[in-house]
């Protein structure tokens, strides 16, 4: 039997994507506005469905809002690409929305079959999104890497799911918990099945050692698509993990908990070291988003009983807002000044006070430093479960790793902040290479300033965000 209340929102999103594609294909001329408005309306409709009070599970609702809201901001930010001849609007919106509907079903899924189908629905269009820009070698290369690693990790996950089904005879989360521990299969086999299943999700999250696709893919993709990958794709994977680990594999904690803890620690260290040496803003954000995934992953190591999953999701929500702002600003800069190197943002605060300040705020949030109090509170939130004496603090070492990585992150974020508020560089002093049509810039700027305003408000009153995620 189908529970339609769960399916409506993903269907609305996917339907909107298909409509956008058709309108674009049969229109007389290419129009960004037509497919963009259809996508926007479909996503708003999905948000309304998600926020209707009939949905009982607050965590899944919050995750769904995160996925749809993130996509909404990406669609708005993508308006900067209007009139870029190599970027077809219909296809872009179609792929974005279909992929988002995959991400949405992923966080609404309650069984492994739905999960793996959603994972594919999330992945395949996003591979196409990366390679979408016509005639761009970097894009094709990024998409190809992404594709190969994606296929391998999905295959591993499928293998794991096959094992899980083999030893338990079910794919439904709520039944798996008991069936797996009642299984007569050796504990090692059950453990291996569980860990293999988790691997595919760790890949989507960009966790080390499955992170190598991230930098090349983000740099090859257009900036809004990179924003999409770093926020919506990650939210889907993190959401699925947060539901799957305690609900389905809660009694198998001994097998996956060390894996998640070590992956989190490695992800933090490797991501931060990678970001440290970047001199391109997108490269820096790509590597730093690997490290940020480590912050999301760390508290999952102590996810035990169902219902204590708020810490990773709260962190993810803050990260999503900040990262969308950062990528949005970089997208604007790239469109107007034709690049994303450090030189292209030198003195941005003086040239573009509003978007420049928004970028500074986003970077301080990602670093977790006042005046971006919400970023600091997010760090607090992920450290808290690791140091909870009720769990006997077996992962206090991970808390120390997390704390030290805050320091590394601060150094490179602050280095970028210093460039952004510093003297105006020759790039920004010169004229814009591409005077975007005012409308597109206004829309894209809105997509930056709205989440930036949210960061300001939640820095004063963090409860507005935290209490909303149960």
């Amino acid at each position, binding site marked *: 039997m189908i529970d339609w209340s769960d399916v409506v929102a993903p269907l609305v999103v996917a339907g909107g994507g298909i409509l956008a594609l058709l309108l674009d294909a049969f229109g007389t001329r290419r129009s960004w506005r037509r497919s963009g408005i259809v996508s926007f309306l479909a996503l708003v409709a999905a948000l309304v469905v998600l926020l209707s009070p009939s949905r009982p599970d607050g965590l899944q609702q919050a995750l769904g809002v995160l996925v749809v809201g993130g996509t909404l901001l990406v669609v708005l930010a993508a308006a900067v690409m209007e009139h870029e001849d190599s970027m077809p609007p219909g296809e872009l919106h179609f792929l974005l929305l279909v992929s988002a509907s995959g991400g949405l079903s992923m966080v609404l899924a309650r069984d492994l079959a739905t999960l793996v189908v959603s994972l594919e629905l999330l992945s395949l269009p996003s591979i196409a999104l990366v390679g979408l820009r016509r005639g761009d070698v970097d894009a094709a290369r990024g998409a190809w890497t992404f594709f190969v690693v994606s296929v391998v990790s999905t295959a591993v996950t499928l293998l794991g799911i096959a094992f899980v089904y083999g030893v338990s005879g079910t794919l439904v989360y709520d039944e798996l918990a008991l069936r797996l521990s009642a299984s007569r299969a050796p504990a090692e086999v059950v453990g291996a099945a569980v860990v293999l299943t988790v691997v595919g999700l760790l890949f989507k999250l960009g966790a080390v050692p499955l992170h190598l696709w991230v930098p090349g893919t983000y740099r090859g993709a257009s900036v809004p698509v990179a924003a999409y990958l770093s926020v919506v794709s990650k939210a889907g994977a993190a959401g699925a993990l947060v539901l799957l680990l305690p609900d389905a594999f809660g009694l198998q904690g001994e097998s996956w908990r060390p894996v998640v803890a070590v992956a989190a620690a490695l992800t933090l260290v490797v991501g931060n070291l990678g970001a440290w040496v970047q001199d391109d803003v997108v490269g820096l954000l790509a590597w730093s988003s690997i490290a940020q995934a480590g912050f999301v992953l760390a508290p999952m190591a102590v996810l035990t009983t169902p219902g204590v999953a708020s810490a990773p999701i709260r962190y993810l929500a803050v990260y999503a807002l900040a990262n969308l702002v950062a990528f949005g600003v970089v997208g604007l800069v790239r469109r107007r000044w034709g690049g994303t190197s450090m030189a292209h943002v030198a003195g941005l605060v*003086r040239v573009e006070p509003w978007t420049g300040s928004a970028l500074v705020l986003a970077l301080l949030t990602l670093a977790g430093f006042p005046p971006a109090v919400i970023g600091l509170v997010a760090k607090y939130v992920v450290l808290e479960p690791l140091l909870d004496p009720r769990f006997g603090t077996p992962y206090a070492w991970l808390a120390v790793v997390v704390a030290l990585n805050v320091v590394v992150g601060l150094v490179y974020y602050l280095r970028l902040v210093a460039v952004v508020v510093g003297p105006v560089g020759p790039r920004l002093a010169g004229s814009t290479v591409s005077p975007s049509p005012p409308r597109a810039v206004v829309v894209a700027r809105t997509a930056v300033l709205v989440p930036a305003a949210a960061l300001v408000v939640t820095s004063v009153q963090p409860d507005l965000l935290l209490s909303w995620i149960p």
Partner: protein
Amino acid sequence: MSAVVAAVLLPLLVGGGLVLSGGRVPGRVAALAGAATTVVSAALVVAAWAASGRGEVAGEVDAAWIEAIGARWHLGVDGISFPFVLMTLLLGLLCCVSLVDHAPAGDGPPSALVGLVLVVVGAALGVFSSLDLLLFFVFFELALVPMWFVVARWGDGEGRSRAATRFLVFTVTGSALMLAGFITVGRLAGSLQLTDIAVLRVLVTGPVGMFAAVTILLGLAVKTPVWPLHTWLPDAHGSAPTVGSVLLAGVFLKLGTYGLLRVWLAVVPQQAEVLAPALATFAVVGIVWSALACLRQTDLKRLVAFSSVGHMGFVVLAVASASPLGVSAAVLGSVAHGVVTGLLFFVAGALRRRYGATSWEALGRGLWLRTPRTAGVLAFAAIASLGLPGLAVFWGELLTLRALYEVGPVLGRPLAWTLLAVAALGVVLTSAYVAALLRRVLQGVPTPDDRDGELAGSDVPVVAVLVAATVVLGVAPGLVLGVVEPDLLAVLGGVR
């Protein structure tokens, strides 16, 4: 809104506004506005203090803030924090006054520098008046980024950016660990309110409690700094602009010593008793080491920077004694160091502006005869710094040594008296380097220089106020001690 909250927020808002104004406000106007802001803040705090009774928290506010993690908007000023608050506002005021005439050149408009100074002052006020651990931490970190900009943008010399980043990395590493400690305490005690933890601190026990105590201590020891975690200090203080050095030494280091009293000794007293002997030992090593390092310095600014490690060693020693006398000595020593080192850095800054550097070669010899008044102030400050009776620093050090002599509840007699002997040796060595400084710079055959000249402009009132404060604290230490005494239990309630 409570007067204390207004006093904290006012410098933050005015400072933030000046930073964001991007140079549209002329530097002198900004500096005068900054000075007025600190005066208003001071008036608010003093009014709140006068309106409250002894032994209670002045201007206390306790409102819901982040219910999701149990953090509250909980601020107030008591006898431990009041001296720190007043010292911060005094130094903030003098920094702004000094910027009226002597704004350093840097990569940014002077109004932004005034704004950053105000943000640092406001953040420090927030630390001193926070009664919630997370709020304490937010303000503790809020001061960092502005300070980094002050050193990196307005500092002297080539190494300023490196020095600023090293300072940032050291202190943030410490404070990130401290955050882990705070969270652990919060989970163990079930509350982040310092007032609750004071009642519930028996719950903070076991290895988890020790983890919390060690991480919090590490964070504060970097900030204070305690030898051997001080290596960020000389470069940062040496390369900062004058107001940066004054704020670093006068206010920033006090965040560490105040934290040792308020969120270490008071929060994890049982663990503090175990760690105190080690802490005290590091403190006396720091005293002797700093005096030896000062003997080798050939630059006035770096000498003053190194001497801070020794002064802070005395304060940490006082904290580690965990006795009522020790706590009083720690507060008095912190305030006195802020005033005297502030004076030294202002004089060094004036000399640097005149001669381009503060190395012995640049200053030349015979300053007594070349610029007698400036030389007199320098001599006064240096002698105050070595602890001459009747001047500010003397009482903090004397009370510290007496706390050791009387053997508090924590340190055993053999250890306490050994520490006493070594610290006394440190005092002797301090006299040696101060004497060396006076002989090298003030005496000798004068080497006249075209740039010779006395203190001028807004330096005159700044120096006059600090000289007066040094004398007042030296003659009447009871002004501070009388404020601290009724609230000693707020720090020592958990020590046996």
